[in-house]
């Protein structure tokens, strides 16, 4: 009965006029465009168009209050011989490498939180996630006070052990690491949420089988959790590196303009901000922006190429 009906229905469908079918498809298409229009227009106006505009600006020379003239490759030529840019690049890469520490910390935290029957799971989750949703400027201001070399809590704490701590945010040798710690602290929660979700998808029977075979908790973590979680780890690492290479707000608030540690902690985006808005050298800043784009593309490309080696997809 059912088979016959299907055959009849399919025959009817074959017979339905072509005009009706494409008319329906056109109507669907029109609705599709209409519904994604806000996103597409927003993306086009605020993201895509500025990219082309910035690319154009990287070939220009700016006046103090606007106005620009075509300058050719001068900005790029200056860029590759500028020691300030090289220093900022070095700072940024060190910062990005340090920020990646939030990935293993996040995995360990979510592994600890993923144990069945853990009491107060939502409390822990909230506590770890609050830094993520706090305004970066507020986070930076509070940590700046915490790090205060004379009156901050860190210094008071070290005094209890008789250690005379440095001025974390104004000492050139410690400033970058101090800011990196804040960056790690504020992204553990975000990574933790992603890893927890990833861990939920790992089939329980793998763990049960391992336990039967006599594997301890730690062994299970390294042989089951990590490989099964590797797609999530890959995603978090890629996003984490891209974000860390663009670090600006923490450095801007915690390490100000007249800070003696600025040279040893300014990142490439901070240099971009300085050139574009403080020194009104917009063309050079645009060239810096494209240098950063190139670096991010290279790093991300490398990561995607390496994923074949260590990411385990089902």
């Amino acid at each position, binding site marked *: 009965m059912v088979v016959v009906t299907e055959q009849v229905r399919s025959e009817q469908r074959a017979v339905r006029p072509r005009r009706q079918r494409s008319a329906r498809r056109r109507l669907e298409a029109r609705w599709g465009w209409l519904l994604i229009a806000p996103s597409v227009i927003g993306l086009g106006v605020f993201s895509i168009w500025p990219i082309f505009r910035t690319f154009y600006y990287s070939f220009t020379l700016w006046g103090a209050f606007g106005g620009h003239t075509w300058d050719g490759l001068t900005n790029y030529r200056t860029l590759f011989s500028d020691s300030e840019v090289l220093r900022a690049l070095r700072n940024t890469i060190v910062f990005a490498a340090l920020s990646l520490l939030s990935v293993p910390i996040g995995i360990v935290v979510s592994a600890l939180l993923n144990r069945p029957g853990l009491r107060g799971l939502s409390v822990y989750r909230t506590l770890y996630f609050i830094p993520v949703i706090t305004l970066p400027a507020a986070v930076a201001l509070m940590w700046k006070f915490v790090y205060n070399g004379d009156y901050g809590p860190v210094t008071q704490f070290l005094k209890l052990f008789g250690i005379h701590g440095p001025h974390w945010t104004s000492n050139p040798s410690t400033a970058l690491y101090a800011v990196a710690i804040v960056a790690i602290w504020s992204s553990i929660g975000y990574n933790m949420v992603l890893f927890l979700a990833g861990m939920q998808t790992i089939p329980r029977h793998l763990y049960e089988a391992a336990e039967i075979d006599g594997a301890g908790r730690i062994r299970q973590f390294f042989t089951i959790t990590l490989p099964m979680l590797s797609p999530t780890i890959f995603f978090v690492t890629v996003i984490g590196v891209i974000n860390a290479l663009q670090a600006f707000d923490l450095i801007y608030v915690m390490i100000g303009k*007249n800070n003696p540690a600025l040279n040893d902690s300014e990142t490439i985006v901070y240099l971009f901000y300085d050139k574009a808005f403080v020194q009104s050298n917009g063309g050079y800043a645009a060239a810096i922006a494209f240098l950063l784009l190139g670096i991010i593309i290279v790093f991300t490309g490398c990561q995607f190429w390496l994923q074949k080696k260590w990411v385990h997809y089902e």
Partner: protein
Amino acid sequence: MLPDQSPAPASASTKKQVTRRTVLSAVPAAMLMTAAACGGSSSGSSIDSEKSHSGPVTLTYGLWDDTQLPAMKKIIDEFEKANPKIHIRPAVTPWDSYWTKLQTAATGGSAPDVFWMTLAYFQLYASNKILMPLTKPVQDAKIDMSQYEPAITKGYTWGKDIYALPKDIDSIALWYNKKLFAEAGLRAPDSSWGWSDLLNAAKRLTKGNVHGIAAQLSDQQSYYNTIPQNDGWVISGDGKKSGYDMPAAIEGLQFWTDMINKYQVSPTLQQMTDTDPQQMFGSGKLGMYYGGSWESIAFKAIPYALDNIDVVPMPQGKTRKTVSNGLGNVIFAKTKYPREAWKFVSFLGSRRAAEIQAETGAVIPATKGTQETWVKSTPQFHLQTFVDEFQYNYSFPVSVNTPVWRDYATKTLADAWTGKRPTAEVAKDIAKQMNGALAKEPSRPA
């Protein structure tokens, strides 16, 4: 699976694909071309060119000092009462980001209608036609410019036009902590002090976590005074040469770096970066502090400071000299309401506004004859000191594009302050950059 998705007729789809593909590839090219076609600038507005308004007008007033905001709000209230159709919205931006924000806003045509201007940035803005000339409105309103301190009026003149009504004038003096002096058994400082007296007192005052004085990396509050006191200068009279590499200037700088690195009577630059020296002084962690007249209102608000500090004239070097700066109120050239903005600025420059500033003790008004009121506003401090210093002050060193060399100097001097490089070497570095920047400047109009 329903066989609904039958392949669309080949010709129609490829036609659609071709048009879609060509459109998608044309878009970046179009964007690149529109990016190149940047908008041109529109000419500035003047009072006569403004169209008439019937409705209420809101002006933005840009400023940076939070401690002066109550005084400004009082002035705004009185102005709005007299002019009910004009509403003023004060916009406070902290000093550190005020100029960056203003430059970006002015480039985009959205700077505040009226805003504070300081001598160091004035020539840059005036020469780029960001400010509205006020010569004609001043003439029409018959405002007597001699009522203001002449140094400030001159500072805001570019070519033949005046661009600001002077708001205030300041000077730097020696604030000291009476309690700490008494505890150290020292006599209070007075106008007879020289550099060595200051250093000796600082040495006696430094103990524990209290330092004798703060050697601030802030030109107006430190070396802009000690360099001319040593018969040196920062910039030549014609604005073409830097004075930083001369021995007199290097000594004027060394006076401060020695305090940190040689005698250890000052907090280190790192300590002063973590905690503002003004706050250190206000909470009794510094014996002495080179502070401006505008800081009295901040100290007035701290009970400990109100009881324990006072101010005397700055110690002299080979000569007596102090630097004076002064703010002015200016109008954005591209404001939509030049007539209303002028009404506000002329009120800001009026005697009544000067009196309000003086009464609250915020700053010394630039209007002569109202300064007495400021002196009396905080009787706990000998504020007459600052007014007396006007007898031997000089106007803030500026050129057409002051920020270029001034910002470089501050940033580079950090190396001398931390002892990373010898002061003489840093000073020669600064002079080289400054001379290069001055050579690139356009000439001033006659």
